[in-house]
């Protein structure tokens, strides 16, 4: 994988030290709304972040409830954008899909599936936004060969799948990741970070630890 040279300042024994940057993964089901919102935010703040979806396909709303636009992971956002704009610009503008796709295509090329991208390397922290996704990520990690002995923190923050909540969820994710980023290891501080987060935002945050 292509890992950039980056370091972060961390708290170390009352002072500061340098450590390698953590790598974050934002995961939702379609890698469109929640994970991309968080991805965009974290990226803008200079964190090393990637994003994924755990569903089998990328689903976008269609003209009716039962006619979603279904894409394969890997289909460029640009392509979806162009296609939907051609289909019904009014509709997709109204429900915010076009704006969302536009944002996404400025962040990265195409939605990626978590399960299919084990080759992307080692993450330190994975944020998921739905318990189903959380479970999928954990399960996928469990199914991989765990030989690196490298712990990975998987956290789930429940975020409703709409634009507004995604914006809120993205901000919370950013805050959380920045907090984690400031510590040399998350292993020793995660309890306090999570407790503090839950207390401050009155939102439930569950986490688990898996290994690469």
């Amino acid at each position, binding site marked *: 994988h292509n890992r950039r*040279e980056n*370091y972060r300042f961390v708290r170390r024994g009352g002072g500061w*030290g*340098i*450590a*390698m940057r953590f790598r974050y993964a934002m995961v939702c*089901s*379609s890698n469109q*709304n929640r994970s991309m919102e968080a991805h965009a935010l974290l990226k803008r703040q200079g964190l090393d972040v990637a994003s994924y979806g755990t*569903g*089998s*396909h990328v*689903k*976008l*709303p*269609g*003209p*009716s*409830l*039962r*006619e*979603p636009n*279904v894409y394969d992971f890997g289909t460029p956002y640009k392509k979806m954008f162009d296609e939907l704009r051609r289909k019904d610009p009014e*509709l997709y503008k*109204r*429900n*915010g*899909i076009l704006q969302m796709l536009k944002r996404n295509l400025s962040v990265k090329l195409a939605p990626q599936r978590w399960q299919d991208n084990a080759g992307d390397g080692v993450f330190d922290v994975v944020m998921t936004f*739905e*318990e*189903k996704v959380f*479970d*999928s990520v*954990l*399960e996928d990690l*469990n199914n991989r060969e*765990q*030989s*690196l*002995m*490298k*712990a990975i923190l998987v956290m789930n923050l429940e975020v*409703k*799948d*709409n634009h507004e909540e995604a914006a809120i969820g993205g901000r919370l994710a950013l805050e959380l990741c920045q907090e984690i980023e400031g510590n*040399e*290891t*998350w*292993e*020793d501080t*995660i*309890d306090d970070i*999570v407790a503090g987060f*839950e207390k401050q935002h009155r939102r439930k945050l*569950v*986490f*688990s*630890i*898996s*290994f690469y």
Partner: protein
Amino acid sequence: MVGIMASYSRERLEGLASSAKSATELPPKLQRLRNLRRDLQRDEPVFPTELLPHLFDLLSDQFGAVRKFVAEILGEIGLKYVELLPEIVPILIKSLEDETPAVARQVISCGADLFRSTLEKVAVQGLHSSELNDLLESSWTWMIKVKDEICSVAFKQGNSGVKLCAMKFVEGLILLYTPHEGSEADFNITILRGGHPVLNIGDLSIEASQKLGLLLDQLRHPAAKSLNSSTIVVLINSLSSVARKRPAYCGRILPVLLSLDPLSFLKGVHGAAANLALKTVFLSYLKCTHPAAAPWKDRLIGALKEIEGGCRAGKAKDIFYKTNGSIQDKDSTEDTKVSVDDNPLCASSDVAESNFGRKRSGSEYNIDLNGDALNGKRARITPSVSEESTDGLNGNDGGSLPRVAATSTGPSNSRGVSDTGPVQQLVDMFGTLVAQGEKAIGSLEILIKSISADLLTDVVMANMHNIPPNGSSYADGTNELVMNMGIVGSDAQIKYPPSFVAAVLSLSTAFPPIAALINPRIPKTENEDEEVFAVHVDQQMFPAEDAVLETGLLASSDASFPENEDDSNVFPPNVHYIKNIESGIPGLVSSAQLDDSTMNVETATKNQNASFSGNLLVDAIPSMSVDKSEEFSPKAAATDSTSLVLSTATSVASAPQFVLPKISAPVVDLSDEEKDSLQKLVFLRIVEAYKQISMSGGSQLRFSLLAHLGVEFPSELDPWKILQEHVLSDYLNHEGHELTVRVLYRLYGEAEAEQDFFSSTTAASAYESFLLTVAEALRDSFPPSDKSLSKLLGDSPHLPKSVLKLLESFCCPGSGEEVQKDLQNGDRVTQGLSAVWSLILMRPGIRSDCLKIALQSAVHHLEEIRMKAIRLVANKLYSISFITQQIEEFAKNSLFSVVSCISSERGDAETRIDDCNKKDLDLKSPPNKPQPVISGMDMPSEATSSASLSEAQRCLSLYFALCTKKHSLFVHVFSIYKNASDPVKQAIHLQIPILVRTMGSSSELLKIIGDPPSGSENLLMQVLQTLTEGPTPSSELVLTIRKLFDTRIKDVEILFPILPFLPRDDVLRIFPHMVNLPMEKFQVALSRVLQGSSQSGPVLSPSEVLIAIHSIDPARDGIPLKQVTDACNTCFAQRQTFTQQVLASVLNQLVQQIPLPMLFMRTVLQAIGAFPALSDFILEILSRLVSKQIWKYPKLWVGFLKCVQTTQPQSYKVLLQLPSPQLGNALTKISALRAPLTAHASQPEIQSSLPRSTLVVLGLVPDSQGTQTSHVQANETQTSREQQQQQASESQQTSQSEQFSLPLSPSKTDHQEPSQVVASQSQNSPIGTGRSEISQSQNSPIGTGGSEMSQSQNSPIVTGLSEMSQSQSSPVGMGRSETSQSQSSPVGTGQSEMGQSVQVSDSSAPAPMSHTRTSDSQASSQTQRDDDEKTENTATSENEVTKSEKSKESSEEEEE
């Protein structure tokens, strides 16, 4: 070549290593190390050992990142070059205690790899030889050291990230040391079985077991307390991983996990994370197929239940089911789902089903979402195939359906036998899995495999109870049975192999109810509760169904079959539904019913199916309805069977054993277009069926159906548009409201349900456009008075922004021309506002949005609209406590904005208003666009100001309205007033009268009035005026204003409004201030004073007014003389008020004042001018003035002479009364008088009465020196004569004055006036006998001040004498005069005193001219006089003293 490469590389590597060492910055160091590592990864047979020291050095580098990286490189080297291990490992072990956790973790990671690979090598080598080579052996020794080191970290007390890693290492160790089954490619310790020189499998197992024990110990109670949640989570996960991979350890691990109660010893986040880990672990065990896991399932379920804490009993089982379902989900669900979605036939789902599914998806088990989704889809899969399957079944194996039914409903039936327990649970599980259809096949297999043979036997036995007597041969495996049943001999087998199987499986969804129907006496199981519940929900949603049941279905069933009633709960609503459709389709029912009546159960079913599949109509109903009916066709059949049983009254008991005959129905394969058109047809048909349905009473159901279909249909069919057209074509008769609301609720539910983002987005947008379309159409097609629209808005579950905008366009119509065009505009506004009102009351969620609309409307630029809105806001909304504050804020802002925005500067007005509009908070009502257009350079300024005025009114009206509700708000109007521009002030003044009248003089208002902000005087005036316009102002108000005048505002105008209500004294006190006002204002004040109030009459009489004016002393009161004369003129101008009588009375009073008022003569002159008839009276006044020695007041003297001149010839008489020096003076001043006067006096009879001195002056007799010399004091000759003369003339005049007074007081009842006159004269007369000049000082021997002195100046010698004599004679004189004059003035001197005092004090005394009555006050003053007479002498002298003092003072002043 290779050698060269190697050596090159070797040098390069060294170079890299040393440069990495020497670099001081982290990035270059890492970069070089990274290059080094890359080079090392090339395949080199021999490692450059000289590199190692460099690397070891780097292991103590200052940067943790470098150390970690070096450790990683060393690990890789160790893996590759085993021979180096003895060198590397000791160094690594040291690094295990590195201060940077990342380094230690890296060491563990390397250690794990090295350990594993070394172990494998050792194991493998041992297999082939009885001895290991030394190198390997020493490596192994080192690796064991590493292992022990890491283990010690893992089992150390406390928490750390390194420990997590170490524990993971231990997990790996346990796995390595224990054998595993299966053909995994991994190293398996079992290869050691043959015996190994170093490794003993038994020992390894023991060690693994021991390590496991140590891990477990950490989780046991006391130890676990000190752990943080990360450690616990990792422990749990590791242990569970061990248990999964080595099921043999289940027995040790699971009890510990199960007894672990994180909540009991961990708080908050700890508990939550641990709980989650446990849950995941437990769930994964439930999936575990190993026999060792099976016995734990009950406990696992129980534990899961506990974790969820207080969840419904069925939850845990649900989890299990769904988990099983999701085994397969993980990989394939998504695909399946999509394919399901792609299948148009599956696009529908039953209302009950989807609700049910949603309800469950709302549970915390989000992990089961996949499974849930399946549940939802399941229903959709069923229908399309069930038809086929039914056909197939009927065609091939008539007995299979009931058997399936019996099998799958096993749980419910078997309940009678064994209630709960593992067997029952398994049966339930099977049932549910079977119910899940195709997707659950995998899970079923796993389940079956995982059950021990004994248990499976029990399950089968338990299930036997459910199998009908003749179907006993199917105990050999549910799965197989189902598969076979579906496939054997079916015509459709080849055509639909996979989906067909699924279809058969899916049939069982409906089984529990069927089972209940078939065997109604068997009590329902828990398992059914959900179904029942779902049905209940459904029935609540469609209350009309009962009616449908009665009318459409079996009218008699309830009556004849009591159990039927019980079962009706279990009847899926769709049964009625089908019936309903049937009844809605003419012909269908009749044929079916006809057949029914004669047929047995089997044929009935057949007919039922036949009629559905064979009938063109049914074919024409696209997937939706077909699905519905077919999906439940078994139930329908069962229902029919009951009904037939009813009608035939046979074989009720044997009903469970019925066998379905073969039914062959055509299978129609439709293209997508055909399906679409069929769907559309169906939809249209349902839409059009409103008449029949409304008569049969099923409209509720129809609405739900339409709403539901709308959601399900592909959008090309545009179901919403069809519905909208239908609704709007006849809103009232088509029950448009109900239908719309139903659609809206359906869509809203769809949008709000926590589904994926996408369906909710779509539904939300459909919702919005539907509501908006209907609302707009209602607006356009109904009159504003119609309530439909507001009812719709009120009933809609949610009002999106666009709808609020629509509402806003009602309340705040935009540009002017539109407004003009729409004649109903006003009503429209009313309509909008009333809708807004009710929304505010009933919809807390959008309250503030609605309020905003109302408030905007309340500052609308059109007055009509504004007033409507204001009425709503002020009268209705303002009193609602939770929005009062908001309204007030808004109004206040609007009020304040008006001051800051609207300027009186003409040029700026336009732009300011525009600015104002812009920043006008968010009340942004559409600005009057014409304004900027007109505002050219040449725009007339009045247009500007009128625009400003209207703008000001726009912003102020609301506030004023609020003021009437809450008077204290009014204070802000005062406070802004000062800085307000003219238009604003104008607007305020326009409003004030109405406003203040409404408010009345409340205490709040009085408070404001009592302390008005400076600059608000004008406003205050208007407020006061308004307040006093009506009935008598309250005493509080009067008091407030007076206080205000006394303390704050010295402007007497402030008192004008209450002048009529002030006490007389107060008015007199402030009278000088009034006189000092400009003429117009004085006139106003004057009229108020004179007019008084209706209750108490005039405050002052006209004569009092005049007297008050005359009593003003310009010098003392600081009022210019001009003001006083003007005031006089004003009075004279009002002849109606200031009549002749008034003047006479006034003059009469004034003349008695000592000193005489300054303007007295002026007034006399004016009186003559105004009322010539008064001349006689005036003459008398004049003669009294003579007696008052008028010549001593120089100013008055001039006036006197002028008066005399004016009134000649009558005034000659008066002239002649003057003492001769004064007469001379007069004649000198006005020479024109001399001749006529002389002529007059020369008349014999007059001449004879004249004193000689006078005659001398007139030249009628020659001057006599002798007489003259005796009067030294006077400059003029004949003084004594004159005085004598005067005395005489005065006594003469006394009688004259009596005569003169006659016309004024014709009735003798009132003696006051004449008596006063007399008295005043008699006062003088005794003095006059001597020297009148001295007589005054005579009376006041004490008070002889300056006047005496001045007199004595003139007569230094005589004065003393005359004084002496006079002071002696004074009492005598008085007495004398009394007696001598008693004839004319019986009361005497005292009375004159009284008269004078009365004049001042007796306010209520009637005008002296009112002769007809004797007033009380007069009477009282009469009696007073009588009393006073006794003390007359003393009193008189005293009074005289004071009076003379006064007169002296005033005369001094005059002189000054």
